[in-house]
């Protein structure tokens, strides 16, 4: 699971009013390089909840991101930032661990990089 996905995921358990962001329990993180897509990064940047993203990247062991989101223009002017953004967003994978509902504490397992977000009968 990449941090891009973590940024879109939200706990949808019945009764949960704020299921975002999910907590992260790390057992295994893997880095996999992928080509930079500048258009995509420009498009996705405004959608990202920066605090959740920055916190999550620290949990995953990457501390290079700024605490505050810079201005979008930085994506075009600061190649170093672009690379860091890209790296944290798309190249860090939570292979084994769990995502945690911030309201209920319920854990959603992540195995082989795949989160299982299916709810039990009593959670829908």
């Amino acid at each position, binding site marked *: *699971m*990449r941090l*891009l*996905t973590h*940024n*879109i*995921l*939200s*706990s*949808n358990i*019945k009764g949960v*009013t704020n299921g*975002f962001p999910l907590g992260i329990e790390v057992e295994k993180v893997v880095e996999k390089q992928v080509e930079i*897509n500048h*258009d*995509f*990064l*420009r*498009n*996705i940047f405004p*959608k990202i909840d920066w605090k959740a993203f920055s916190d999550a990247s620290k949990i995953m062991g990457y501390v290079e991101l700024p605490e505050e989101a810079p201005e979008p223009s930085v994506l075009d002017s600061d190649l170093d930032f672009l690379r860091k953004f890209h790296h944290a967003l798309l190249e860090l994978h939570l292979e084994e661990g769990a995502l945690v509902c911030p309201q209920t504490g319920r854990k959603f397992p992540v195995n*082989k*990089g*795949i*989160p*299982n*977000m*299916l*709810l*039990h*009968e*009593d959670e*829908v």
Partner: protein
Amino acid sequence: MHSIPCNFSVFGYPVISSSMKEIKVKDASTLCTLLPDGEPHIQQSVFVGEEQRSSSISVKSTPELEKKYVHCVYDAIAPHFSSTRFAKWPKVSAFLESLPTGSLILDAGCGNGKYLGLNSSCYFIGCDISAPLIKICADKGHEVLVADAVNLPYRTNFGDAAISIAVLHHLSTENRRKKAIEELVRVIKKGGLVLITVWAVEQEDKSLLTKWTPLTEKYVEEWIGPGSPRVRGPSAFTLESIPETEENGLGGHTKDSRENTENMHQSMCLTPENKDDSLVSKDGSNQQEYFVPWHLPYHRAEVSGASAGALANGLAKKDDKKGAVVYNRYYHVFGEGELERLVSGMDNAVIIDKFYDKSNWCIILEKTLLGLKHLQDKDTSPSLI
């Protein structure tokens, strides 16, 4: 509208009590190891007096029919199914290629991930309820998760576009189909597009439709129309195995997963009398609920291992002549105008295209209002159309 409790069984009378116990098990995977006494029957009975369930059954709760005849089946056939799913439907490809560079595209019910990454300038996140299928996607390097299309675990307004390709016809109630569409629209931004395709009642090859096994009685909650709950007598219809010719899983989109049959079992085909919004298909019947067989070759069945349980439970049958385990997949095929009708009540989506192509009804929606939990800050900007 009357509801019936979830604790009914697809199987026949001798196993009602044992099934009722088993239904309480939360883990859907255990359903694949039920041990009925006899042949799979379509359960007719409605349990009287359980009306208090009507509000407590969530539309997000998976009905038995889907657990047994969609989830279990796809889990068991996943690698074989995936091997037959490679032909890309031009209409879907065209839609994906038309999306702006750098879009985030959500594929809900992505199956084996056939369309993930199709537009190399975009980023895809796929989800499916079948863990084995998602594993196949992940092995190809796609970003995927296991999730339910009726309850997407995504933040509102995040994606740029969403697709639902041959998914909604596996949902067994109108409310669940509506909910799945609402979810697709919810998770994308205002101005974003959704493409939905579903199998049509109006099949180009009409002989195909008559060769599927119709579900002759409906026992799912909302199919029990207004009025007192009905208790049907012991007149269960038996699903006998349909002798079939070839497995036609290869080739173009229309042929995907549709099995040709030699002789159709003469199951009694009652017209459902209590469906308020029933549609008349071209052959004059109201029949839209079907079991469509899938032949899993023995060597594949042995590898997956799930078939032993399915055979023991009556969820699947052996066809020695063909050397395959035969599963049935549940479909609600859509009639003309049905997708539009499902969307008509939505206040945050408009139809920008609708078409019929290769025996599928298709629709493209555009999201027009910001999705909001509470309607205080309703977006007052004009619709984009």
